[in-house]
């Protein structure tokens, strides 16, 4: 039995960014292990948006701040800066975290 060095491949920040931007540009019918579920709550009075991205791919990005920055970068890439500036809150969650927050998936 050959012995090889252990290597775990987790998606890098840039890969996640590209995938999320692609998803925002061209949303898929349903979320699965590959595709994130993107929930947008638009506040009617102000036009501002709260964005939640539920995804299996980012448990290793444990910092909520990093996920928030990634979502905003993807948003800007996909929809342009003017649309991105409407977002006032960007929260990245795993499916388990979303369920704990009673977010309907």
């Amino acid at each position, binding site marked *: 039995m050959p012995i090889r060095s252990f290597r775990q491949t987790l998606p890098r920040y840039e890969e996640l960014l590209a995938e999320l931007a692609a998803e925002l540009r061209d949303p898929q019918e349903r979320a699965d292990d590959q595709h994130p579920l993107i929930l947008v709550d638009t506040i009617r009075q102000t036009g501002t948006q709260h964005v939640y991205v539920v995804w299996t791919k980012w448990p290793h990005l444990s910092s909520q701040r990093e996920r928030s920055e990634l979502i905003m970068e993807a948003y800007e890439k996909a929809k342009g800066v003017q649309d991105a500036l409407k*977002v006032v809150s960007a929260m990245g969650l795993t499916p388990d975290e979303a369920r704990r927050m009673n977010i309907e998936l």
Partner: protein
Amino acid sequence: MALRSRLRSSPETLQDFEIAADERYWEAMELMLAGRKAMGIYLMGYVAEMRLKLAYFRVIGQKSTAEVKPLLGPVRLEAAQLRLETENYHSLRCWSELLIDKRTALGLASPSGQLETTLRRVANTLYDIWWVEMRYRPDSATEDEMNSIFDGVSWLDRNYMSLWR
């Protein structure tokens, strides 16, 4: 459960900032009264940071139960638009300029502009004295600098409600 685990078990909210800002203000004042200039300034600077962040987030309509970290991504984009350096979200100048910009955009700026002018002056004074990296340096603060920080943060504390209502 250890303190770190207890703190990490629930996300930071704006309400946490409100309470922490009050607590740190009095603790910083005690340090200053005991002549501990560097630590007094260091802690007082965080009070300014929390007050400015709170005012900004309240101006954009966030409730006190809102989690803080998901609000930071959008802030980075806003700051980039205004060519402001966030200094890892610690820059007092950045937060005060974001607050002034948002108050103006939402039509909340004071008619005379006096509040914004004073806010900018106070924040710039605080920015020139307080730096988050100062914790790694020996104490070289002067009494005047300590007093300036105290005066500036006390102004923010007194005017906090007017900054976002």
